[in-house]
């Protein structure tokens, strides 16, 4: 059987509750949000506005903008954001992430 997470986690630490796309998740406080979502088994963070294709973190250094998510109503790069208690994270609606800059 496949493990739930495609990643081995070397670090431990206190976790905080966030909500991703309606699902509650307990992520490590202060962790890189894109990494924490990957560790929680979330690989798709958004769908493109052109074709609706799924996308997840790609560069992890703030350059590719494939990990855009909507956090408390603002579209941000998950890989440039740290996990904080109570974050409401949503997959951006079509047209909100991907086009324009």
């Amino acid at each position, binding site marked *: 059987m496949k493990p739930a997470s*495609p*990643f081995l986690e070397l670090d431990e630490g206190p976790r905080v509750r966030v909500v991703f796309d309606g699902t509650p998740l307990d992520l490590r406080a202060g962790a890189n949000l894109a990494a924490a979502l990957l560790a929680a088994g979330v690989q798709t963070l958004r769908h493109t506005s052109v074709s609706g*294709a799924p996308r997840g973190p790609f560069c992890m*250094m703030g350059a590719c903008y494939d990990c855009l998510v909507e956090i408390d109503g603002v579209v941000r790069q998950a890989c440039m954001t740290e996990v904080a208690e109570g974050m409401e994270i949503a997959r951006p609606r079509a047209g909100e992430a991907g086009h324009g800059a």
Partner: protein
Amino acid sequence: MAHSDLAVVGAGPAGMAAAVTAAEAGLSVTLLDEQPRPGGQIYRDVDRAAARRGDILGADFTVGVRLTGALAQPGVAHVPGATVWAIEAGWRLLYTRDGRAAEVTADRVILATGAMERPMPLPGWTLPGVMTAGAGQILLKQSGLVPREAVLVGCGPLLYLVAAQMVRAGVPPRALVETQTKAELIAAFRHAGGALRNGPALAKGLGLIAEIAGAGIDRHTGATDIAIDGEGQAEAVRFRAGGRVHRIPARTVLLHHGVVPNTQAARSLGIAHRWDHGQHCFAPVLDGWGETERAGLFIAGDGAGIAGAKAAEAAGRLAALQAGRQAGRLSRGQRDRQAAPLRAALSRERALRPFLDAAYPPHAPALRPPDATVVCRCEEVTAGDIRRYATLGCTGPNQAKAFGRAGMGPCQGRYCGLTVTALLAEANRQSPEATGYYRIRPPLKPVTLGELAAMDAPARDAAE
């Protein structure tokens, strides 16, 4: 509004070394960096990671604490979490931090914006689960994550380093799918003389390969026809090697065929770039101190041409010495005395490059991918689209924007620029240099109206 003698953009090895050297010469320095903690990508989060997993990451990584530690001195104002989105001559740097736009001015600027992964457009490379090898390393360094059931695809020392680190972490990759051919490796030996000037680096590379072999990881060399299969996410890597087709299941696929200079900031200032034939990329035109054609603007580190962390550190210090000389804080003799050992180190590091560049050339099919492959990830423009634009008279990347929005998404061409140049160059039978590159304009990174509204009034006027 804060003013400094020198502003440095990027807190990797070049930027940190430049900031510290300039401060030691008596300059006031503002060091702007996007990340919450210094180190750049090569020493990402080194202060925490060296203590937690220095054994996995190795001594070449943990040595970075020497540079981050030196930042703690009164002459350097390190501003973490600062995303620079415009640089204006004179010099004025606009950035966003904590949801607010802000600015600093400076007499001189050193750009130390480093490298980024060379785009590797293969069929399926946009699927979730496919990342750059650099991203895999960042996950390990910063977050302590190691992918299970991973396949590494491409070529170059970084691929071996990531594989060895995964072995040390107890989660070896399922396979290395290597694009390097035996002929390429043999051809590289005519550059062996330069490589031997840097024996320790060469020995480290051989050590990594031995570590991978010792772990019994499957290595497939000379791989062609590589594609990532998956329904909604990466599920397997398919390729041809040794005369037959292979398909290896993978939940994570890490791609790498070299890194290239991140030239966005320099290009936004109109700095001339030349095509580097050995490294298959553009690099800014600089003098021996790293100064551009615009007085007071320097570029140091991998953003000036790929030479690695040690070279970046030396180049950062050289640029800072010249900035100190120009500011009248160092005499010519003081500058030159400090520069001599740095130039020797730089020369030693650069001597290794012709060998590495020849031994691990970019994967040719990923430079000019098949028609159906997406090349512009943001706007989902395919290689076939770009070729079609060429038949309609499109001669350069800037026209390609008008034809179909290539390079106009939020990444602003970072991950398609070189591919679009290569495709148009081939279709129009022109050199990459004649074909050119996207014209880059500020904002270098998306900035929101809310962030601008939170800015000080004088800066807001100028931003309008």
